[in-house]
């Protein structure tokens, strides 16, 4: 094989001369992390609300949440992203659409990717929250109500605190999925990690180094999230409730 390995490529300057290729990678990492985090927070908030909706006695709320999950789970992520990026700006009131199209491209890419990934992941979180609440059995809810708590109070003080501690492991894998799914934003041009890998292939003659470095960065991100979630899991474990592995 006549390939010349050159790991110092990351310290050489980019064509415009301002920075090094390493900075490009770090910029990509920064956008991947930023997009994953804001999408994850969005997904947690909306997913919790809809997950509660799915378990309430109110038929309309249940129907709404069920419909939401059906739509967002049955359309591919990439199609959803393109709809947010190309379609929604045409369909919203003209002033909002015009504002979106005139704002700077990076903001457009980021907002569309954020809405897409956040709402997509929310559907998955909804299902986890629902499963968590349902796993508690009717006794907990009954006990809360019998104590004189209102239904919202029962959710706030009894059901949700337990449910979240139970579903922490599946939520961890959803967070990891969010990080992986953020790579889809490359298709609308957001300069996240996987886009930077392609850029480095285009600009340098060192495709192997670029791809190995980016893959390693994804692995490190994964490892970090798993580590912190594991700590959180141990801290919040319900004593005696379940045998964790």
């Amino acid at each position, binding site marked *: *094989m*006549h*390939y010349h390995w050159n790991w110092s490529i990351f310290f050489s300057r980019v064509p415009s001369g301002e920075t090094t290729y390493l900075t490009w990678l770090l910029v990509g990492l920064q956008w991947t992390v930023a997009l994953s985090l804001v999408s994850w927070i969005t997904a947690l908030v909306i997913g919790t609300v809809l997950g509660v909706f799915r378990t309430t006695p109110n038929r309309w709320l249940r129907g709404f949440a069920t419909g939401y999950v*059906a*739509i967002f*789970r*049955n*359309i*591919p*992520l*990439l*199609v*959803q992203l*393109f*709809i947010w990026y*190309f*379609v929604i700006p*045409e*369909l919203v009131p003209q002033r909002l659409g015009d504002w979106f199209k005139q704002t700077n491209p990076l903001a457009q890419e980021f907002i569309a990717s954020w809405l897409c990934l956040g709402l997509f992941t929310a559907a998955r979180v909804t299902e986890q929250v629902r499963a968590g609440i349902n796993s508690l059995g009717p006794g907990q809810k009954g006990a809360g109500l019998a104590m004189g708590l209102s239904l919202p109070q029962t959710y706030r003080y009894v059901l949700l605190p337990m449910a979240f501690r139970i579903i922490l492991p599946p939520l961890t894998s959803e967070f*990891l999925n969010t*990080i*992986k*799914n*953020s*790579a*889809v934003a*490359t*298709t609308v041009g957001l300069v996240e990690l*996987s886009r930077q*890998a*392609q850029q480095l*292939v285009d600009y340098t003659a060192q*495709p*192997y180094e670029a*791809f190995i470095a*980016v*893959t390693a960065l*994804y*692995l490190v991100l*994964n490892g970090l999230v798993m580590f912190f979630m594991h700590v959180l899991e141990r801290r919040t474990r319900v004593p005696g409730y379940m045998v964790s592995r």
Partner: protein
Amino acid sequence: MYEFDWSSIPGALPYLAHGAIITLEITFTAIVVGIIWGTLLAVARLSSITILARLAALYVNLFRSIPLVMVILWFFLIVPQAIQSLFGGAIQDIRLPSALVAYSLFQAAYYSEIIRAGIQSVPKGQASAAYALGMSYGQVMRLVVLPQAFRNMVPLLLTQSIILFQDTALVYVIGLGDFFGTAQRVGERDGRIVELLLFAGAVYFVICSASSYVVKRLQERAA
């Protein structure tokens, strides 16, 4: 207000059908190869040969920790060049073969986790009984454990396959004209991207909802 104009879709149906064939080709290749390779990985991971188990675990964890987009790009940009520089030969249009390989190897990692759980759900006594009858390891797996395991995991394998079907749209990153890619191109060509994207989304929605419904019914019948 935006004015919809759906007139470019009927004329584009032949192209879209051709794209849909590519989508299905990737989906079914990845299902078949993925399940076979995934079964081997699961068996390897549960084997008593430590090195084999470690290698299988490494493979599965590696593929499960990197984005599918990266895997597709690896097999499109990097692996073919490496093979070419090793064995020589000209590179032709490798988009479809590289996508088939990428999806098969990627899906195998996900299938193997489902299959591993399925194998572990078969009570130990079943394997012991088969050994007591004088069966070899291969016979125990093939005739006793795997048939029962597969029965348990059919719904999960099908759900994973629906996810795979949705994920095939990502071949967009290597410019392969699958159903979605074709819809997007037709939309750009005719300046009707809004209609074509909504149409593509609706088609995926109908297919995936119907398949999920069937899987759910299957699950209820099995339970």
